C-alpha cells in the first residue's frame, strides 16, 4: 500500500515532530498512535510554521472537542494557509456551521439539521440504491473494477447534487474541486485557493439564481427560512452553508465506503460472515466507521488553554484526532481488532460536541445502501492487488485506488 501524499521530511521523533502526512501515518497510523498513547499521548509538531498538538487518547479528544470557543473552529483545516498570501480568509473554507463558533455556529446549524434528521434522509434511499445498481451494472460483467474510483467515489457527489438540486452532470467536477480544496490543496496554497474560488463562483451563481427565481428545491427553501440573523444577507449565508454541504459530504463519505470495501476485500472471513448474515450490517458498518475513521479536524486556540500537563498557547492548533481516539484500548476492548459484531461501540468518527457531523445520518444511509447493494450483487470479491491500493490522508483518510476482482 502506498500513500498519495507528497514526500515529507522523515519523522525522527513522533512525540515532538509528528506528521499526519507521513507515508507511514497515511497507510497505517495505528502503531504510531499506540506508541504515542503509551508514552506521550499529546504529541506536538512545529512543522508547517505553526505549533500543533495531536491527542491520541479517547478521553482527551472528547474533552478537547468541548473546549468551545477557546479552541475555535474558524479554521478547521489541518494545514493552515500561510498568512502572507494576501488572501481574505486563511482557512480557504468559509462554511458555517463547521467553520464557525457560537453564536453563528448555533443558528446556521439549526438551519440545516432538519434536512439531515433520520427520517428526512430516508427520502434519499431509493435514489442512492438506484445509483449504486447503475454503477455496478457498469462493471459487474467485467469481473473487476476500481472500488474507489468506479464505485465509492461516484456515490456521494451524485447524492449531494441530487439533494441540492444541482445538475447531476456536474458530479465529476465536484469531486475534482473537493479534492483540489481538501486533498491536493492542503500542501499547495495556490491549488487550494484556485479550487476554493471555483467552488465559490459556482455556488454564488446557483444561490443567486434561486434568490431571484425561487425553485422547488432545498437551497431555495434555505433562502426563505425565517432566521433573523440571516436577514439582508441571505445569499451570502446560504452560499456558505452550500459550501459546507458540497465539500463536507463528498470525500469523507466516499472514504468510508472505500475503506469498508477495502476491509471486506482483504478479510475474507469478515466478508463471508457479513454476506451470510445481513443482520450484521448495522454493527459491521459502525465498526468500519470506528476502525477506519476518515476525518481529522483542527481547532485553533484563541487564548492560552491549559490542558493536563501542557498549555495550548494562543495561535497554536490542536488536531481533533477522532480516528486515533477510536483506537484507544482504554475506550474499546480489543481496539486494534475489527469485530463486525461489536455491540459496545461509542466511537466518535463523526466527532463529538457541538460540531458533531451534521450530515452523519445521510453519510450512514449512503454507506448502508452502498455496502448492502454491493453485497447483494457481488458477495464474492477480493482486493486483487494489495500493492496497488493507495491511500489519501491528512484531513480525510481513505483509499483512492482499490483494485478489485470478483
Amino acid at each position: 500500500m502506498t500513500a498519495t501524499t507528497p514526500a515529507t521530511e522523515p519523522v525522527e521523533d513522533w512525540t515532538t515532530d509528528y506528521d499526519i502526512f507521513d507515508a507511514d501515518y497515511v497507510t497505517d497510523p495505528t502503531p504510531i498512535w499506540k506508541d504515542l498513547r503509551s508514552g506521550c499521548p499529546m504529541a506536538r509538531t512545529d512543522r508547517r510554521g505553526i505549533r500543533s498538538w495531536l491527542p491520541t487518547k479517547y478521553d482527551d479528544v472528547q474533552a478537547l472537542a468541548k473546549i468551545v470557543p477557546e479552541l475555535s473552529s474558524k479554521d478547521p483545516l489541518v494545514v493552515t494557509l500561510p498568512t502572507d498570501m494576501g488572501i481574505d480568509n486563511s482557512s480557504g473554507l468559509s462554511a458555517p456551521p463547521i467553520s464557525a463558533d457560537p453564536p453563528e455556529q448555533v443558528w446556521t446549524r439549526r438551519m440545516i439539521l432538519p434536512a439531515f434528521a433520520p427520517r428526512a434522509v430516508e427520502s434519499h434511499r431509493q435514489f442512492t440504491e438506484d445509483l449504486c445498481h447503475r454503477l455496478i451494472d457498469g462493471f459487474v460483467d467485467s469481473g473487476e473494477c476500481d472500488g474507489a474510483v468506479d464505485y465509492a467515489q461516484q456515490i456521494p457527489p451524485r447524492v449531494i447534487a441530487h439533494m441540492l438540486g444541482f445538475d447531476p452532470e456536474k458530479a465529476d467536477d465536484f469531486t475534482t474541486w473537493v479534492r483540489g480544496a481538501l486533498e491536493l490543496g492542503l500542501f499547495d496554497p495556490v491549488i487550494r485557493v484556485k479550487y476554493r474560488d471555483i467552488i465559490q463562483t459556482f455556488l454564488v451563481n446557483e444561490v443567486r439564481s434561486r434568490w431571484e427565481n425561487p425553485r422547488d428545491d432545498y437551497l431555495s427553501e434555505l433562502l426563505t427560512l425565517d432566521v433573523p440573523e440571516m436577514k439582508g444577507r441571505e445569499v451570502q449565508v446560504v452560499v456558505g452553508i452550500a459550501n459546507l454541504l458540497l465539500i463536507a459530504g463528498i470525500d469523507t463519505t466516499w472514504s468510508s465506503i472505500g475503506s469498508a470495501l477495502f476491509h471486506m476485500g482483504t478479510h475474507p472471513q469478515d466478508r463471508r460472515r457479513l454476506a451470510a448474515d445481513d443482520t450484521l450490517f448495522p454493527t459491521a458498518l459502525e465498526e468500519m466507521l470506528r476502525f477506519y475513521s476518515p476525518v481529522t479536524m483542527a481547532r485553533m486556540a484563541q487564548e492560552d488553554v491549559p490542558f493536563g500537563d501542557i498549555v495550548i498557547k494562543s495561535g497554536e492548533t490542536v488536531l481533533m484526532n477522532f480516528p486515533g481516539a477510536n483506537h484507544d484500548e482504554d475506550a474499546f476492548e480489543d481496539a486494534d481488532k475489527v469485530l463486525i459484531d461489536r455491540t459496545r461501540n461509542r466511537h466518535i468518527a463523526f466527532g463529538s460536541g457541538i460540531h458533531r457531523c451534521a450530515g452523519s445520518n445521510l453519510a450512514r444511509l449512503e454507506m448502508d445502501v452502498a455496502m448492502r447493494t454491493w453485497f447483494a450483487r457481488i458477495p464474492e470479491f477480493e482486493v486483487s492487488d494489495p500493492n496497488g491500493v493507495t491511500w489519501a490522508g491528512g484531513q480525510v483518510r481513505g483509499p483512492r485506488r482499490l483494485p478489485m476482482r470478483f
Partner: protein
Amino acid sequence: MKIRIDAEKCQGHNRCFALAPELVDVDDYGSAFVLNDGIVPDDLTDKAQLIIDNCPEFAIEEVAE
C-alpha cells in the same frame, strides 16, 4: 429499568434512535428524548443497555425507578 437522556449532553448523533426506536425518538434537530417516560419494558432492557453503551456523548443513563 428506567433511562433518561441528558438534553444538555445530547448532540443529536441519533445512535440511540437507530438502535432502539422503541425506547427513544428524535426531534427535527436530532435531539433525542425518551418514550414512555423512560420506562423500559422487561424484554427491552438489553436494548436500553445497548443505547447507553453506544452514545458518543455519554448522554444516556439508567436512573432509579
